[in-house]
């Protein structure tokens, strides 16, 4: 503890040099942490939007062809698949023939897992799961027909020779929910149809966006050569391959980050060597007083460590703040997205900062701590 003052005082020896060193380490670690977090942040941004992990699986022959209901279990068994929601079109109209809008039936048990981004309230999902005639309606359709929650409505079948009577239990509020959709329960539709056990489309949710291509492949290969072959597509088709395409770029970014750190490490080493060289006389005086070599070494390394860590904290803090501002100022990333610098990268950057501090001073500090006292004194006295 009594040496803390000594370390701090020595840092004020050449304030400008100390500040410049701290600042250059800060800049390099800012660049380092930003570049190294790029892949993680990008995948976080992408996987945070639920649409990037949703796959639509339909009949290879076309959207008008159906598939057996039993595919649900087989798709659910594919690796990385989190949820499967079968979907069938009803194609009903409200009052007039012109009152067309997309209405379809889905399985209620997995719907909430599948569309967490549609802005449906917890109670609405709950009612959707418990009430057999429940339906959820998009904002545009609500407005168009002046509907209100709790209202009972009848949709007239156009494909099917029957009508469905539904109760509105909630609204799909979020902007990324389809605004003119109406969804109701597939068990209701199935019953009315006399249980044919067929489905028009399966919505499949995968655990992470980078696993989307793999899951698509596994699903479609699983049904190859069957009576109803499938074609699966990512909801945001470009996203799945995005990470793949940028892998090389991310590698380069990482390598670049490491190069920046090494460069600054060398600059810091040069500065440390200079500042220790200037003090050889003083170090010799302290040694002659009886300060052991290892105490001198610890003092010199502590100084450099403080410089490194201060640089690291400033650099990390800046990167953290910039990411924060970037994520707040960018609604395109979606409201769910709250980009954080990954904590492991924060920790890694601080470790790198400490290493820059320790390694940059290691050789000159060790040499100074061990140097011949008499020779060093002769140089100054």
């Amino acid at each position, binding site marked *: 503890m009594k040496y803390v003052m000594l370390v701090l*005082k020595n840092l004020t020896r050449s304030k400008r040099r100390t500040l410049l060193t701290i600042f250059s380490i800060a800049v390099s670690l800012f660049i380092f942490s930003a570049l190294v977090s790029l892949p993680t942040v990008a995948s976080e941004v992408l996987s945070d939007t639920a649409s990037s992990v949703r796959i639509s699986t339909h009949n290879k022959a076309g959207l008008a062809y159906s598939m057996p209901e039993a595919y649900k279990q087989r798709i659910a068994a594919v690796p990385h698949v989190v949820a499967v929601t079968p979907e069938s079109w009803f194609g009903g109209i409200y009052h007039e023939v012109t009152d067309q809008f997309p209405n379809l039936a889905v399985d209620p048990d997995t719907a909430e897992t599948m569309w967490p981004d549609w802005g449906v309230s917890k109670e609405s999902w709950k009612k959707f799961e418990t009430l057999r005639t429940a339906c959820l309606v998009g904002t545009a359709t609500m407005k168009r027909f002046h509907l209100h929650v709790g209202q009972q409505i009848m949709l007239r079948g156009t494909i099917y020779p029957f009508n469905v009577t539904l109760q509105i239990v909630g609204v799909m509020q979020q902007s990324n929910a389809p605004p003119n959709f109406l969804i109701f329960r597939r068990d209701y539709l199935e019953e009315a149809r006399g249980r044919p056990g067929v489905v028009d489309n399966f919505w499949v949710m995968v655990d992470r966006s980078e696993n989307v291509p793999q899951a698509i492949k596994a699903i479609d290969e699983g049904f190859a050569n069957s009576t109803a072959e499938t074609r699966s597509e990512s909801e945001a088709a470009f996203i799945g391959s995005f990470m793949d395409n940028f892998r090389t770029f991310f590698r380069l970014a990482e390598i670049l980050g490491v190069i920046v750190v090494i460069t600054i490490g060398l600059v810091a080493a040069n500065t440390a060597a200079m500042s220790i060289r200037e003090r050889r006389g*003083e170090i010799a*005086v*302290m040694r*002659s*007083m*009886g300060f*052991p070599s290892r105490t001198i070494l610890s003092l010199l390394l502590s100084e450099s460590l403080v410089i490194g860590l201060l640089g690291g904290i400033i650099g990390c803090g800046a990167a953290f703040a910039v990411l924060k501002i970037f994520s707040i100022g960018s609604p395109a990333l979606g409201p769910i997205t709250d980009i954080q610098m990954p904590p492991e990268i924060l920790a890694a950057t601080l470790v790198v900062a400490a290493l820059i501090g320790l390694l940059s001073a290691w050789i000159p500090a060790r040499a100074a701590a061990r140097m011949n006292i*008499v020779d060093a*004194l002769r140089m100054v006295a």
Partner: protein
Amino acid sequence: MDEKYAVDIEHVVRIYKRDEFEVRALDDVTIRVPQARFVAIMGPSGSGKTTLLNLIAGIDHATSGKVSVGGEEITGMKERDLAAWRARHIGLVFQFYNLIPVLTAFENVELPLLLTPLTKTERREHVETALRIVGLADRMDHYPRQLSGGQEQRVAIARALVTDPTIVVADEPTGDLDAKSAEEILNLLTELNRQFRRTVVMVTHDPRAERFVDTVYRLDKGVLVGVEAGKIAPAHAAAATAQ
């Protein structure tokens, strides 16, 4: 080796090898300094004065011969033990003061005390006492650059005596000072010797110093060429005995 000698140097040879040349900086020097003396090592430049002092201070090693200080033989000590030994027994004063520029007078004097188990409060007391002795109690918070050469050297002396060392060694402590400041420093070292019974070994080529010391050892080309009594002026002697 005898307890009553503060410094006991027997047949010491110190050879420096520089490229293929050998420099015999000290050539078979034998010196015994009794305790509580103020002695000077004098001689022309390059005669081996600093080399001798460094051996006494335990920061250099004899090529052959034996060096005992304060009744303890240091010739064979390992550097780690030697460092601890220096911290306890030696107070060093240099020609160019060698204060740490980023530390205040107080902190400079406190520096060697960091090696002791003293508490912060105890250290403060010791430092204040040492600075009072050298007459700089009012300059504690000054940095070296805010002090004159004479004042800096007094801080350096306070730093050398604060640990209460067995022996104070000073290498040309007046070499860089004007006549008046030099006189002050010599008086201070005399007081240290007379009042606090410290052994003081001083290297100098300042003839005025002869008036302050008990004994003068003369070196020439690494050889001890004479041991003389000092020429303590009556005024100094009287002042010294009065205390």
